């Protein structure tokens, strides 16, 4: 009996070891070229800002962190909540949430469509989704601009068909930012959704519909639970980069309103306040990381149950 237990324990240990070995390359690369260097940023957030960018090494100060949440009055010494930072945060979160929903509404049917093609055609459709993204982000953003502009393709078509009297101002609005980001990040939603839908046995859905389940019910009860992992992966991949989006708001939104990415960039650039930039980005990371951890905790518990 004890011998059997030993064998099981040894097998578990072996399994664990191989799981660490398998993850080693990823962990190593990310450590060297992403997380490790970020220690520098954490350190910077506690230092005194340099006169012209950078920091004064080994002179510590809490000013960077203080300025994340509070601001001194522009013209007096009063201290108040950093209203500017909070409204920028709120705008970014709002736009990112709506973007995620928009990509989901368009992306799910598209992934579903691809997954239900005959197997040898699926890769082709998948390639068709990614091909537009082989052109550079900036070029793509400029191309979208050609569609949105007052004299652009969309407005011209709408006026020609008589649907509009005069051009609709889309460029330089929050709507343009939203649609632009949704366009740019669409494959980040479609591909993970496809990856989990492709495996889905559509006979299950067919069986249910043969048993007179309404389509909405089939979708909710059978398909959605199966694609949940892809759905969550896609939402993460769209939501988080949208929060830090920088190029699209600048070009399509006209740069009149800052988003989080632009605010942080300002501190590392013209603002020359690296400690504040560092502190702002650590705050952002912490918020995102915490919500992700909560999700993983919740989902790995339910995952463990379903796999027995």
């Amino acid at each position, binding site marked *: 009996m004890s011998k059997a237990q030993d064998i099981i324990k040894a097998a578990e240990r072996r399994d664990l070891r191989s799981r660490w070995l398998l993850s080693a390359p990823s962990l190593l690369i*990310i450590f060297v070229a992403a997380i490790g260097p970020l220690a520098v940023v954490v350190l910077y957030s506690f230092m005194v800002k340099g006169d012209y960018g950078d920091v004064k090494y080994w002179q510590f100060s809490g000013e960077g962190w203080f300025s994340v949440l509070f601001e001194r009055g522009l013209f007096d010494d009063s201290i108040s909540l950093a209203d500017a930072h909070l409204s920028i945060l709120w705008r970014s979160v709002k736009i990112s949430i709506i973007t995620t929903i928009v990509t989901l509404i368009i992306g799910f049917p598209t992934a579903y469509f691809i997954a239900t093609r005959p197997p040898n055609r699926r890769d082709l459709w998948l390639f068709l989704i990614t091909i537009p993204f082989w052109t550079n982000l900036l070029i793509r953003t400029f*191309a979208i601009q050609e569609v949105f502009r007052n004299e652009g393709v969309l407005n011209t078509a709408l006026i020609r068909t008589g649907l509009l009297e005069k051009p609709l101002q889309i460029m330089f609005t929050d709507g343009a930012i939203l649609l632009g980001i949704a366009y740019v990040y669409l494959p980040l939603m479609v591909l993970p959704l496809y*990856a989990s839908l492709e495996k889905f046995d559509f006979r299950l859905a067919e069986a249910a519909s043969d048993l007179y389940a309404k389509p909405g019910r089939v979708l909710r009860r059978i398909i959605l639970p199966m694609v949940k992992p892809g759905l969550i992966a896609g939402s993460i991949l769209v939501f988080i980069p949208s929060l830090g989006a920088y190029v699209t708001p600048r070009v399509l939104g006209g740069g009149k309103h800052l988003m989080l990415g632009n605010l942080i960039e300002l501190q590392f650039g013209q603002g020359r306040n690296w400690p504040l930039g560092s502190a702002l980005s650590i705050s952002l990371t912490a918020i995102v990381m915490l919500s992700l951890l909560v999700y993983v905790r919740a989902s790995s518990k339910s995952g463990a149950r379903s796999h027995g």
Partner: protein
Amino acid sequence: MARQFSVRHQRGFTTIALICFFLLYLPIATLVVYAFNAGSTVGTWEGFSLRWFEAAWENTRIIDATLRSLTIAPIAALIATAAATMAALATTRTAPYPGLTFKYAFINQPLMVPEIVTAVALLVVFSQVKVWTGYSGLGYLIMAHAAFCIPFAYLPIRARLETMDLTLERAAADLYARPWRVFRRVTLPLMWPGILAGFMLAFVVSLDDVVITEFVKSAGQDTLPTYMLGQLRRAVTPEMNAISTVFLALSVAVVSLFFFLSRKKT
């Protein structure tokens, strides 16, 4: 396929999907059209001409930058996908074990941080390495790209693996197939769509990167995106449209070839 089922052909879904494809290609179409514009600005049509293709072909900086982008992206995407596939195998289809949550957070970390911050951090650290070693080649860019590509490759692969259970692999193992054989013959084919999706995402993300590249690049290492960033202040010429059109044509050619070959095989 003997019988067509209605579930596979949700008419509403098909309509949305086709609209989606139309919208995806609409800006791309305008981009291609303006590549053939005789005028010198994007946006006002002044007749057909190939002058921008000639200009781009003669512009050694654009050609260099394009080739550099096409060197970095496949290598970085390949490294990232290989690493991410292994990591996905190690973090799915298991009871929670110590360190699982940690790995998950660690691997997804490059997503959580705004690019500019990673860029500044990499600038500080990699510059020191450059000074110490005297090596300032493309290795730094490939390494940086591979790192931020990993989560993009990892998430689709993981999503795929989570929908696969271990039954088939266990069956193969019960039939005395060796682990490597089980992996190659059973696991890998099953997870292939996820790997392909992951690789394509990683490739595209690397091809697009501006900010990190801008801070990590050494002398003479402009990629297509950083070259374009430099143009933003002055004027973007249709040369860029011409280059993108060539890019598109090439990728369509590659895809058709790929598709044709795979059809023949089956």
